[in-house]
């Protein structure tokens, strides 16, 4: 749990609203899990004041690089786009608990909405490298917002694109799609991120078919290290409701426990 000054290798716009940043980890020794995140200083300045949390998009342990994929939303991510190649960026992490990839699984299915793919891509990569078959349903408003498809395809992930534009991204259609996929490919685990609406499908299927599932949540953060209780959400433990911190007990939670 430390801040690191790491060198920016690239920081580039990849589509209308999305940017991609790659940093050099060769000077430090970090073990980073898919699903974990970093809290990033958008500027070497008091403004914006707070750091901004970004999931790990990709970890390359050979090249010793770390990548982030981010949506330009407000002032913080806007300023992040000004971070220049070869300068340093101050990142705090890795933070939180990542995804659990089960040894025994042969096939997994990911369901990502929008920038949720930034969070699931690292998992897809780890799974593919471990020889698992990975199905990934990517949902977005427009074709343009479907990110990382090439990268995912290049590592052998089977991709299904659904968009609001085309009209195949609503809950019933996505549910039908998952059903279709499971017909020819037995799914061992489910993972989702980026939409509570879509996560409900995963929760339902996980329960019905008794498949383990996980979800990465988001909440406004203060400290990102578990001390301020800004980022809490309720989860179900047995028949009790428990308050947990997204930054500390999460951001990844068993799908059956979350309240959507």
């Amino acid at each position, binding site marked *: *749990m*430390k*801040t690191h000054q790491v060198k920016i290798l690239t920081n580039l716009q990849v589509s209308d609203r999305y940017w991609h940043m790659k940093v050099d980890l060769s000077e430090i020794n970090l073990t980073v899990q898919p699903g974990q995140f970093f809290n990033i*200083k958008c500027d070497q300045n*008091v*403004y*914006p*004041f*707070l*750091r901004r949390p970004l999931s790990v998009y990709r970890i390359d342990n050979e090249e010793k690089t770390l990548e982030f994929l981010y949506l330009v939303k407000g002032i*913080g991510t806007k300023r992040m786009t000004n971070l220049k190649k070869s300068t340093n960026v101050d990142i*705090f992490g890795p933070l939180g608990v990542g995804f659990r990839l089960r040894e025994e699984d042969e096939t997994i299915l990911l369901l990502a909405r929008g920038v949720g793919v930034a969070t699931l891509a690292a998992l897809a990569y780890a799974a593919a490298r471990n020889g698992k078959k990975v199905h990934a349903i990517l949902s977005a408003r427009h074709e343009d917002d479907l990110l990382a498809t090439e990268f995912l395809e290049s590592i052998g992930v089977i991709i299904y694109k659904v968009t609001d534009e085309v009209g195949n991204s609503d809950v019933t259609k996505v549910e039908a799609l998952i059903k279709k996929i499971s017909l020819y490919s037995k799914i061992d685990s489910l993972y989702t991120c980026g939409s509570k609406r879509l996560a409900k499908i995963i929760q339902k299927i996980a329960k019905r078919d008794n498949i383990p599932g996980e979800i990465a949540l988001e*909440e*406004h*953060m*203060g*400290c*990102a*290290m*578990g*001390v*301020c*209780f*800004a*980022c*809490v*959400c309720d989860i179900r433990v047995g028949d009790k409701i428990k*308050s947990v911190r997204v930054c*500390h007990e999460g951001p990844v939670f068993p799908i059956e426990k979350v309240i959507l």
Partner: protein
Amino acid sequence: MKTPKLEVDIGGLLLRNPIMPASGAFGPEMDRAFDFNQLGAIVPKSITMEERPGNKTPRVCETTAGMINSIGIQSKGVKHFMKCIIPYYAQFNPPLISSLSASSIDEFAELAEIIAESEAVRALELNISCPNLKGNGLAFGMDADLTYTLVKKVRSVTDKPIISKLTPNVTSIQEIAIAAEEAGSNSLNVANTLLAMAIDPETRRPKIGNVMGGLSGPAVKPVIVRLIYQVAQVAKIPIIGCGGVVNGEDAIEMILAGATAVQVGTASFIEPTAMVNIIAEIEKYMERHQIESIERLRGQVIID
């Protein structure tokens, strides 16, 4: 020059240096960031008698050079605190200052009595100023009489040093400070957060779930420095400055205004090692200015 002396005495409690966390901006999780033994004192999140859920999310939002929080004292209750939190902090050398929050004067006294029983607790900080308890921003510390009665009652149940944490949201902090002192406080924390609000013009909703919350961070420092200066004119007991400290110079500024010790809250969210950095910066400042003991700086602002 010898290494500068950083020891301070905050009303009967000796600290090896004047820097400690602000309640609610510190927790066991930070032990991976730095060694707690470097701190002047340890101050956990305010504790309540019963378990409390805290407020709706979002609980924090950013403002220019600050943040608003409305955590609302999420707490597991005093039993859990006694069983799990105190023993954990007891393993560190810096004295443990327990911050208390309650919704009535009697409850404050009861809670104080229970917690003071623990030997590891070396002082009590009375959070009579939390703007996030009732949703309307009101606090005991806004009224001098209530403050007096509350502190007096707590005084009657314990001999341990009492720190009264004042609210900045008052017409005359001097009046409240005097009431707290006369009722038996051993020191004063100046101050809690400024009651604040932010609205998102796009959604037209308050940026935090609880509508209003407490403003902290560099934005509030000039108000807090003024309050410290005002309290220092009337109080005989030590002052702990709190609000907006980010670096060593900020801490020195508060000490010059009249503070004996300084708490650091929000700064740790941006830089988890902020407190130890600040201690090092204070030492450097003292060396540069040839100041042997930090006590020499207290209240030493030069007014022509």
